[in-house]
């Protein structure tokens, strides 16, 4: 057994855990609240308020109460003191105005965070001088905005990369912290999908690169990210629309209830006048004055959730962005919460991903030295980390190639052939999946011995990936590619299972290896020997069963599956096609983050549900504060169970509570309810207990306290 060779792949894998290395994106939040206050006033524009039915009703109510403040007798002559009535109407107007303002403020604060992030990204997009390579090979200095797709530029150490592109020539390390927050440099070189793509706005730290520009000005990755996080044209998500309909229905019901109160109050007043005298009758009529009816309406409609609804959605996007993931829409974030199937790649997601050759196992009685020689010959053109680790292990064993590499030709790996290798004159060196190599050898008239199957099974049972190597029609041995399951994944998958999320692992490995890894990681299901087409098939199958599917991908061949999935997360290090097909891009290129995204999505939905429960439960206390006010003269004073000082104080206290609860809940709306991995039933019970019962008790206490503190006495 050979020792694990130190691979140059370790150069590209920064040391330490991701969380310890990654700095949160530098976002300047200074002046956020001042800007939000200004924005809250701008949002008073009725053309903006009209999109929120609850707040539009409050806005109109404010307008009407303002009119009755100016002229208390506008809608009928009141028997009460006009000045007192004007004062009460004025206070009601002010509180209603602040209710709308607080709701606007909540939305503006949530939006402000996204705009601040867009500003910090914009700062990285400054125009730079680029060295454009002319057809004759000379360079010319041009402004980066003049570069077009297909242009070639030369970048040297210390330079800012002028635009998105791919490496044509050179090997260098790049600081991508401006967009990813990742402080460790990333190695860039030509030839592979992943490490050859560079992003404009990042900085070259060493050496020099020749780049081919892949995006025209304004179309680059940072430009698209700015447009996404700014969310200027944010549209409501399906859940938000459904909740808006519910709020509109509740508002409609309470509008009808409140609009029919005056005739009923008038009818009762005529009886009360006969029995208790005209003073009691007038009191009843005054109690149902327009300002008080509007107060009743505003107190009954769910203003809390109406005011915080959009802030919760925007904050969800913001939380995803803080996680260094850019979502194309709120719909994508919300879909994360509804996901019930996760399709995960084994390599890089469940395992560490840097599979390295650990051992050569000889077959057919060949010596290890012979196997090493064949492995070296088959891998000499392989630029992948696995290929290089095979070369290193073989060279460590003293292996040498018996031909001039200039006369040889590399055979690239493809998902169809599942092998790669080298052709030298009449000789064919191949390495790849064991069954693929067996077929290849048989096609050349060779025989496959039992020792190959024994080695294959041995490696598979260790959870490793077996690769067979052959020369022409003879298999020489099996390479053991070792991979390690990421720590803590089993617990994460257990949490997801409790939440009703099924996990499916996809791997190109054989079924024995796949089952060993699946068992170790604790996934629910696995698909072995999967081709890229299998990804899209499994997604379609799950969707046909009514499940919402999330997956990650980085290669061009992942693009159709990313587009098909309900939540497709592309890696920032991936190809342009993958990024365009996905509805989220992970700037850290960490596929495990998909699990965190599901958690954030669920947290968003739980927060929305919790605040809706709280808002509706609040109505009970407000009802008991205002109804006795209106019908006090009808002998229902017993309903004043809070023992509030006076009718006017009760109304004002209820409205002040109604207004203040919105800013009080802004932190909860922005941060989200603390997430717990519970089943849907358990979450419902918990929500009803905390936010339902709490939503009933809290306003009783708060309204009573406000009533005690208020110096109002009419």
């Amino acid at each position: 057994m050979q020792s694990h060779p130190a691979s140059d792949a370790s150069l590209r894998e920064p040391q330490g855990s991701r969380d310890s290395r990654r700095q949160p994106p530098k976002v300047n939040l200074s002046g956020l609240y001042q800007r939000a206050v200004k924005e809250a006033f701008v949002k008073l524009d009725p053309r903006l308020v009209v999109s929120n039915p609850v707040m539009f009703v409050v806005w109109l109510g404010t307008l009407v109460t303002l009119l009755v403040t100016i002229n208390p007798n506008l809608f009928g002559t009141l028997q009460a003191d006009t000045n007192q009535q004007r004062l009460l109407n004025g206070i009601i107007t002010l509180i209603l105005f602040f209710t709308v303002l607080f709701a606007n403020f909540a939305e503006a604060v949530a939006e402000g965070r996204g705009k601040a992030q867009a500003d910090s990204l914009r700062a990285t997009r400054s125009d730079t001088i680029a060295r454009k390579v002319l057809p004759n090979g000379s360079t010319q200095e041009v402004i980066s905005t003049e570069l077009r797709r297909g242009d070639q530029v030369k970048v040297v150490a210390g330079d800012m990369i002028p635009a998105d592109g791919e490496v044509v020539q050179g090997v260098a390390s790049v600081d991508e912290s401006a967009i990813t927050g990742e402080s460790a440099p990333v190695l860039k070189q030509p030839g592979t999908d992943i490490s050859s793509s560079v992003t404009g706005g990042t900085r070259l730290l060493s050496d020099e690169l020749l780049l081919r520009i892949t995006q025209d000005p304004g179309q680059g990755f940072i430009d698209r990210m700015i447009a996404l996080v700014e969310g200027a044209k944010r549209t409501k998500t399906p859940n938000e629309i459904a909740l808006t309909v519910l709020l509109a229905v509740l508002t409609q019901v309470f509008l009808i209830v409140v609009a029919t109160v005056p005739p009923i109050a008038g009818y009762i007043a005529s009886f009360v006048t006969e029995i208790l005298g005209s003073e009691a009758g007038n009191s009843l009529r005054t109690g149902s004055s327009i300002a008080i009816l509007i107060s009743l309406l505003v107190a009954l409609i769910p203003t809390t959730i109406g005011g915080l609804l959009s802030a919760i959605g925007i904050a969800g996007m913001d939380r995803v962005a803080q996680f260094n993931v850019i979502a194309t829409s709120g719909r994508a974030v919300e879909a994360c919460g509804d996901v019930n199937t996760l399709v995960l790649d084994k390599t890089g997601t469940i395992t560490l991903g840097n599979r390295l050759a650990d051992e050569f196992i000889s077959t057919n009685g060949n010596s290890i030295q012979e196997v090493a020689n064949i492995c070296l010959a088959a891998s000499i053109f392989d630029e992948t980390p696995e290929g290089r680790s095979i070369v290193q292990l073989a060279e460590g064993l003293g292996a040498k190639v018996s031909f001039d590499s200039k006369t040889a030709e590399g055979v690239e790996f493809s998902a169809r052939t599942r092998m790669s290798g080298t052709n030298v004159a009449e000789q064919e060196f191949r390495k790849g999946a064991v069954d693929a190599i067996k077929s290849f050898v048989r096609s050349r008239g060779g025989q496959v011995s039992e020792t190959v199957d024994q080695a294959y099974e041995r490696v598979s049972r260790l959870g490793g990936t077996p690769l067979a190597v052959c020369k022409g029609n003879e298999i020489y041995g099996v390479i053991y590619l070792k991979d390690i399951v990421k720590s803590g994944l089993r617990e994460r998958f257990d949490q997801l299972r409790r939440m009703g999320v099924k996990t499916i692992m996809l791997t190109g490995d054989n079924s024995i290896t796949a089952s060993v890894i699946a068992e170790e990681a604790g996934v629910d299901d696995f698909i072995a020997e999967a081709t890229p087409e299998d990804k899209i098939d499994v997604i379609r199958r799950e969707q046909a069963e009514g499940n919402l599917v999330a997956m990650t991908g980085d290669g061009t061949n992942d693009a159709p599956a990313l587009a098909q999935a309900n939540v497709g997360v592309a890696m920032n290090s991936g190809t342009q096609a993958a990024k365009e097909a996905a509805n989220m891009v992970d700037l850290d290129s960490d596929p495990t983050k998909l699990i965190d995204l599901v958690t954030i999505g669920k947290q968003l939905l739980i927060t929305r549900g919790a605040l809706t429960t709280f808002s509706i439960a609040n109505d009970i206390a407000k009802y008991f504060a205002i109804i006795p006010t209106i019908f006090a003269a009808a002998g229902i004073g017993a309903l004043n169970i809070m023992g509030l000082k006076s009718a006017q104080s009760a109304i004002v206290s209820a409205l002040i509570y109604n207004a203040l609860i919105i800013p009080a809940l802004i932190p909860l709306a922005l941060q989200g309810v603390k997430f717990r991995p519970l089943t849907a039933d358990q979450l419902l019970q918990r929500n009803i207990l905390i936010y339902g019962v709490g939503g009933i008790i809290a306003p009783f206490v708060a309204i009573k306290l406000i009533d005690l503190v208020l110096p109002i006495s009419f």
Partner: protein
Amino acid sequence: MKPVKMKPVEMKPVKMKPVRAHTRKRRLPSLPESTAQTLETVAELWSEGRRQKLPLYLFLALCFNLVLAPIVYAAADGELSQTQSWALGVLGLSVIALSVYLFCVMFAPEKFS
């Protein structure tokens, strides 16, 4: 011949009105200037009114209130003044409009997203 001193012509900035593509302004040469201007204004309001519906609806509601206000006044049996009846009529129409708006939100929420 004395040389004539030429004063430089002072160029006064001319206030340019933005061209509004959606309005069709027509000059009516046979009418007096003030009448022509009035007609142009009416024509502009008419074309604007065809584009923006809200002022039209407000105008129609106020017209309808001319019918509604006397009914409220009569029903109040002298308890309300004419102004109060008119205000109450407008308020009633506003509540109905608000109810219609809420129905629109319920049945076509995408329009308000």
